[in-house]
């Protein structure tokens, strides 16, 4: 059984804008799946249709074997959603927000209070349980939405840019939290603009652009498609003349900084051999950009090139 199966899902809004052009997606139980795409690609529309917040134009959705059209209650019981925008009552307290949400899922108040304590505690919000929610920081508000999405203990958690706008420390602690709940069996679908986040967390990735899935594969497979990487080398000594690095494309970014493109024919060992020959000492090295980011841009650009050719 799959956690989520989307078949030929299409959505055209009342204003005529087509957000989804018949996408297909299959998410395995226990998976950690990333849905990537530029702004307006259709990620949020797809997610909101699965969560019954947007009506589909056509297509079919199944969640843990239940069809959304015929068994919406069962589908909703299985899904927890963390939306992009803050959407809780900011005049209410975190504890009330969680307990009320549990009530909407038919969970008794006594059990809801226990769960609220558990999830607010795990997300380090228990001390804030009686504060008015609008006084919480941006990161706290995001964590409150995660706690709310988990209060009915769903088997499928959908995270729509859950770490947008939070600082790196909180983001990393949230990653750890997501990894833990995924390890405990919750299937997770994540959309994010931080491609580093997707690379770190997800085992599968789908790339969506202009309402179509342009790539759907394992993260490792996708990254293997990237046949070249750009490295930035900080050098111990200033370079007074152009180094002779045959077979590599490179450019001087300053007297101590060298930017080099390393492809799969010329590995990084070959590069260091050449640098040794030229007596160039490297003090540090880093990737110029996130690998997934580079690949993402390439996929999106290549698709655009194809559509421009056709037009």
């Amino acid at each position, binding site marked *: 059984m799959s956690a989520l199966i989307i078949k030929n899902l299409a959505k055209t809004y009342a204003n005529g804008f087509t957000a989804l052009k018949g996408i297909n997606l299959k998410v395995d139980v226990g998976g950690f799946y990333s849905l990537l795409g530029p702004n307006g690609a259709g990620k949020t529309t797809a997610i909101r249709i699965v969560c*019954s917040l947007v009506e589909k134009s056509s297509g079919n959705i199944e969640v843990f074997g239940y069809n959304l059209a015929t068994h919406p209650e069962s589908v909703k019981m299985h899904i927890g959603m963390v939306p992009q925008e803050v959407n809780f009552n900011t005049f209410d307290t975190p504890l009330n927000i969680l307990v*009320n*949400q549990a*009530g*909407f899922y*038919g969970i008794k108040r006594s059990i809801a209070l226990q769960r609220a304590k558990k999830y607010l505690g795990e997300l380090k919000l228990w001390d804030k349980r009686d504060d008015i929610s609008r006084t919480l920081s941006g990161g706290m508000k995001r964590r409150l939405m995660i706690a709310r999405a988990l209060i009915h203990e769903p088997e499928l958690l959908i995270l729509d840019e859950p770490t947008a706008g939070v600082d790196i420390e909180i983001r990393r602690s949230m990653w750890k939290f997501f990894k833990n709940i995924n390890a405990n069996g919750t299937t997770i679908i994540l959309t994010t603009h931080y491609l580093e986040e997707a690379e770190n967390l997800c085992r599968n990735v789908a790339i969506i652009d202009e309402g179509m899935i342009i790539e759907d594969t394992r993260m490792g497979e996708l990254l293997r498609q990237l046949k070249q990487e750009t490295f930035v080398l900080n050098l111990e000594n200033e370079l007074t003349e152009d180094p002779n690095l045959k077979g590599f494309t490179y450019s001087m970014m300053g007297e101590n900084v060298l930017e080099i493109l390393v492809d799969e024919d010329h590995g990084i060992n070959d590069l260091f051999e050449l640098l040794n020959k030229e007596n160039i000492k490297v003090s540090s090295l880093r990737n110029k950009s996130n690998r997934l980011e580079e690949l993402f841009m390439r996929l999106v650009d290549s698709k655009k090139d194809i559509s421009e050719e056709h037009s």
Partner: protein
Amino acid sequence: MNLNLNMIAFYTIVRKEVIRVLRIWIQTIVPPAITMTLYFVIFGNLIGSRVGVMGGYSYMQFIAPGIIMMSVITNSYGNVVSSFFGAKYGGHIEEMLVSPMSNATIILGHIAGGVLRGLLVGAMVTIIALSFTKLELKHPLITFSIVFLSSVVFAMAGFINALYAKKFDDIAIIPTFIITPLTYLGGVFYSINLLPDFWQFASKFNPILYMVNAFRYGILGTSDIDISYAYIVVCAFIVILFTLSFVLLKRGVGIRD
């Protein structure tokens, strides 16, 4: 439909609504108390003493049931329209839409919240009225049933208004341009027997006339209309408005893209 789940969800909405009403009591309880006190002082005491007897009762006694009903109607409507539109505006309506509770539960929960506020304010206005005049309860069953059913009608109307509303202005239009005129022209302050024939006839198309008169009949035992018509009108409105609310919510009008 899972009955137990929906019962808990219903209770959750009602509890949330009651807490909301009590938390913002300065907006929900105090204003109607002040307004209705002014009605009793100005219309009942100052002007009423010159009007004399109406329908066999002092003017103060005559208008008291109508004023109580007016406060129930406006508060039942106002509670649902402001709470549901507030949830739409703030986005937290999505908390309910992603949950497995049925559409009927969402509607009934909000209606119950509106009815509770309407009846709470109505009880408070009754206490205020009793400090100005003596009121009997001639027909308790009619009094309580008609006030409850009228409250349900206006809570549902508030729900539909909230579904269609896109901005805060939209939740003030219906109360200002429809409910308030119909209430004032619904026999709260006068007996329609005082009107010329044409306006007596026209008044009979105003549903609030039936509610006010049935309620007055329950308390004072006097009415301008046949009470059975009042029940027919109120029950018909309940069926129509509930069906409309249900269909609109199912279609996602105003809440789903």
